């Protein structure tokens, strides 16, 4: 009886450690909550182009093509890290429509950023007040969404995408 009492802490320790280990190894990250929007329709939005205020993009323009939406800003350093990857994607998948949303950024800064680092996007929408990001449930920058031909969100990633994520998670969906 006494022995069992003394063994208990070790058993509890083992259980806690096993669960924590499985959790850590499963690559789950509490900072990446599953999106409530997954497999839902793209939220309704309307945004003007960074370069031409009269050029407007709306939700219904997105039908019948695969679209990668990326929220970025000139002040976001992780965005800078993932930026070159969009050129790779561009080269590899010319049909994929790349839509960038410039989040809470002064226009001049955004233009300068895309001039310096290059502009991989087919369309750069302005989201100066962050309302579009709010509709998409953006948690932090950068965030990337993949939309299928039916206008449904089929993938979401928080944080800078990397080569691994591109290969293992995004490419199978393309």
């Amino acid at each position, binding site marked *: 009886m006494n022995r069992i009492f*003394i*063994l208990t*802490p*070790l058993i509890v*320790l083992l259980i*806690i*450690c096993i*669960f*924590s*280990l*499985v*959790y*850590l*190894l*499963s*690559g*789950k*990250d*509490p*900072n990446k*909550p*599953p999106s409530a929007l997954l497999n839902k329709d793209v939220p309704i939005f309307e945004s003007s182009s960074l370069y031409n205020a009269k050029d407007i993009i709306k939700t219904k323009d997105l039908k019948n093509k695969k679209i990668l939406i990326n929220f970025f800003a000139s*002040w976001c*350093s992780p965005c800078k890290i993932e930026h070159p990857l969009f050129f790779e994607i561009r080269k590899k998948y010319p049909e994929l429509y790349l839509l960038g949303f410039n989040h*809470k950024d002064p226009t001049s800064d955004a233009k300068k950023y895309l001039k310096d680092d290059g502009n991989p996007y087919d369309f750069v929408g302005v989201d100066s007040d962050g309302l579009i990001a709010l509709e998409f449930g953006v948690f932090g920058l950068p965030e990337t969404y993949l939309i299928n031909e039916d206008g449904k969100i089929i993938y979401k990633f928080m944080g800078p995408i990397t080569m691994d994520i591109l290969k293992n998670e995004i490419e199978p969906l393309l």
Partner: protein
Amino acid sequence: MSSLVGFLSLVFAIGINFYLFLSRYIFKFQKQKFNLFIRFSSLLTLLSFFSLMYAYVVSDFSNYNVFQNSHSNKPLIYKISGTWGNHEGSMLLWLCILSIFSFFFSFTKNIEDNFQKLTLIIQAFLHILFGLFIVFTSNPFLVNSILVNEGLGLNPILQDPGLAVHPPILYAGYVGYSIVFSIAIAGLFQNTDDEWIYVAKKWSLISWTFLTGGIALGSYWAYYELGWGGWWFWDPVENISLMPWIAGLALVHSLMMVRGEQVIKKWIVFLSILCFSLSVFGTFLVRSGILTSVHSFAADASRGIFILLIFFIVTGFGFLVFLLKEPKKSNALNLLFINKVSALVINNILMIIATLTILLGTIYPIIIEVLYNKRISVGGPYFNSTVIPIMIPGFLLMSIAPILSWQTNKINNSKKYVLAFIILSVLVILQSYFLDFNTWGFVGLLLGFWIILASIIAIFSSYKFKINIKFFKIINPHVAHIGVGIAIIGITCSSVFQNELDFNLNEGDKFNVNGKTVLFEKIETTNETNFQSLRGKFLFDIEKNQSKEIEAGKNYYPVSKMITSEAGILHQWNKDIYFILGDQKNNEWFVKVLINPFVSFIWLGVIIMMYSGLIAVSRR
């Protein structure tokens, strides 16, 4: 340069500890020489820490850690506190405090030489584990690969004086338990006389006092900085600090039992191991980023696994030694219906149940996500409805426990207590009847006042009143309990009787708070060195000549593009009036006013508890 010095001394210190660890088996040392080595390694670790701090102070952005977490525009105090405001630096602080504890422990007199040496060897072992963790997964001395002349800034929410000192004090509490752990393990190995229990008692009191201070600072910070109007949120990180705190409280109380006839050695050893295990477990949960909370650090699986391994080794080792080298049978307990020992045993059982309840609630989301792949969150409702009821019998007992006899079943002056309790109950019932009745409010107030009243009766009926140090040492347990009583009253009033008022206001509007007229004077924006501030200025009680000014608003930190809210709090002895400035809509500002009665009692109670913790250290 400073980074190089820091890294080398860190590695060198780990090397020395490795050498000391081997000394148990290979190289035998004289006590003198051994202690010198320990102190030398502590100084090296300190040097390492201060070189990192130096890099922060001079904004040396060639250090990657400084680049990531500092900015040259920051005021000096936040450059200094930036040292531990990030994962790598805070782990170095952890190690640094560990070695400071070893340093001071090496000066302990009146314990057996071999025993002291063994304790320090276990400390050296811990030093190696955490040192390697820092070197391999969280090195704060990495060189920045690009040349920059500006840093990325410190998380603005951390730019606060309270928070600058919160981590070191909290860590002093957490890490202090390492000494208690090492003492207990050494005690198991050597089976010496019970002298070590007195040593352990001193160190566990020190750790507990620091931990109390650290937790209180953290919740005080949450109170005025997060702008939610509360001071405790059952956030995972708060739970993590509460677990070793409660277990530590049980430990301190168990160590008191040594003063009586019986020694519950086994139980004390168990608690000592548990306290430090919970500290390391807390470090694991926070550092692995496995739980989301207000303390969000970058999550990194390799770090998580490494520190999980440390947790497993330390705790597993501790409990395994406990299993194999069980202390010799202690005397049977003299458990009468109600004497001091049985009261302490009941209190210990309750505290352990409370700790386990919190532990379950904290790790439950992990278990559920692993098993069912569902994300759940366990919060206030669970903890409030489980932990508080568990603690209530303990609170009832603590008011009389210090005056119970060690041996017999008798309570002196029992009639006085019964009478006092009845009168008090009637008063509280009357209070609840005339003001709005609330069950928790009733229970909390009754408990709080009962603890204070019974402790005061005990002081005056059991001891002769004198003003000298000895008297204060004798009544110290009662004083500690009075502190708890005061804190319970504060907690009850501020949570149960909180009042919330919402307004939509234009500048120049007058409104009514608690029968006093308040003027919303104006909105003011100013540029400070590292942030822009937006403040709503309020004049409280304008009918009187000495109206008080309250400022509530927000700060915008351009470097990290973050907005923090700054609550405006008017402190009065019996209530805090807490102003939160919301957003502007249609030219009107949303203003929320919370009236938190008796919040100051919480902090007063905590200060009293810390005071008696310190007094108890000096008492044998």
